[in-house]
């Protein structure tokens, strides 16, 4: 019994320790951002790796989710004779929650784990030490472009997910279920408010981008220099990243006040 409580206490201490180290790490990234030279080439490479290479999974998933929403939404609304509001239901669900959250979860799995693995491998093969010995700060050259690219890419991917989802909902509602196209679109436009919904959605995507960018690079950077260490860094990125996204989702939704 005492052992259990001790373990719990120890876990709490370790958690706070990690949080502190993460904060220091984030500060180092912040300082690197302000230090010249700007690493434009690596940054663009990372936009490609994290954004362009995630396009397929994001758009396909967005389409699928939109279609399911269209189907489920229609089947439920038609019971109350409210199927005219399908556009609003699909749109609000996607924009407020499913777009940013699902995009972030998918991105964590794909881009986040890839980032952690890449940095972890560089630690294991002494490439980061090599950079240090050449008087180049590995946080400046390797970590910062990756983290910043993740932040920039997340809102873009989220918007694309949502647009594909709206299209999927349109396809199911209008083409399959026979709703009037104009009704779908106008219901959507009337229900969605720029400030309350779209801005909140983009804000969430940005915050999630910061979370995943930080967690993935931190876990990779601090991984043990072995293949087991790299693997552990990858899995913990996905786990910790996903849980953090869901928790932060609640807080942002509550604070944005809709």
């Amino acid at each position, binding site marked *: 019994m005492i052992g259990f409580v001790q373990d719990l206490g120890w876990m709490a201490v370790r958690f706070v320790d990690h949080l502190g180290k993460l904060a220091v790490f984030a500060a180092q990234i912040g300082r690197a951002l302000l230090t010249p030279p700007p690493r434009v080439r690596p940054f663009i490479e990372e936009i490609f790796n994290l954004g362009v290479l995630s396009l397929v999974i994001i758009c396909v998933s967005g389409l699928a989710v939109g279609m399911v929403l269209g189907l489920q939404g229609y089947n439920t609304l038609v019971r109350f004779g409210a199927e005219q509001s399908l556009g609003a239901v699909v749109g609000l669900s996607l924009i407020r929650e499913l777009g940013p959250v699902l995009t972030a979860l998918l991105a964590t799995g794909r881009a986040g784990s890839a980032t952690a693995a890449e940095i972890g491998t560089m630690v294991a093969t002494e490439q980061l030490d090599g950079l240090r010995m050449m008087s180049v700060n590995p946080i400046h050259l390797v970590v910062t472009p990756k983290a910043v690219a993740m932040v920039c890419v997340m809102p873009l991917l989220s918007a694309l997910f949502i*647009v594909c989802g709206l299209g999927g909902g349109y396809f199911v509602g209008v083409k399959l279920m026979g709703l009037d196209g104009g009704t779908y679109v106008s219901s959507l436009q009337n229900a969605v408010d720029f400030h309350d919904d779209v801005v909140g959605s983009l804000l969430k995507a940005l915050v999630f981008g910061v979370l995943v960018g930080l967690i993935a690079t931190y876990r990779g950077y601090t991984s043990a220099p072995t293949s087991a260490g790299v693997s552990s860094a990858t899995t913990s990125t996905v786990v910790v990243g996903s849980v953090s996204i869901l928790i932060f989702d609640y807080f942002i939704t509550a604070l944005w006040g809709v």
Partner: protein
Amino acid sequence: MRRSAVRDFVVGLFVLVGLSAIAYLSMNVGGWSLRRSGGLTLYAAFDQIGGLKVRAPVVISGVKVGQVDAIVLDKNFRARATLDLDPSLKIPSDTSASIVTAGLLGDRYISLELGGEETYLNSGDEITMTESAVLLERLIGKLIHNTDVKKAE
């Protein structure tokens, strides 16, 4: 070098497509417009605003011409709304503002009925003729009361 030129192009394309998606969601779906349509600030005080919210539209003849910027309680305990309107409008001084509902159970907004005076309101002026929001429950209450009165007769 050629490899990186292709990559730059693809990245640029991706960013462009992503930004257009954001623009589409903001403007087409969310109804955000680039033009700062405000400038003319008018005030209107109501006894009851119902569910009127900040950023609710201000409408003339069904067309949106501005929005509600702020709602405060003035010293007479009336609700004073700050309206931010299109500066090109000429609002006669005897214009009235009423709070109406979109549909039966929808959001509240302000509708302006233009008056006939030749003098126009300037920024900072007050719309003196206002009509408060009709609360549905009061209406129903009145209906029930009237029905009871009729029964009693």
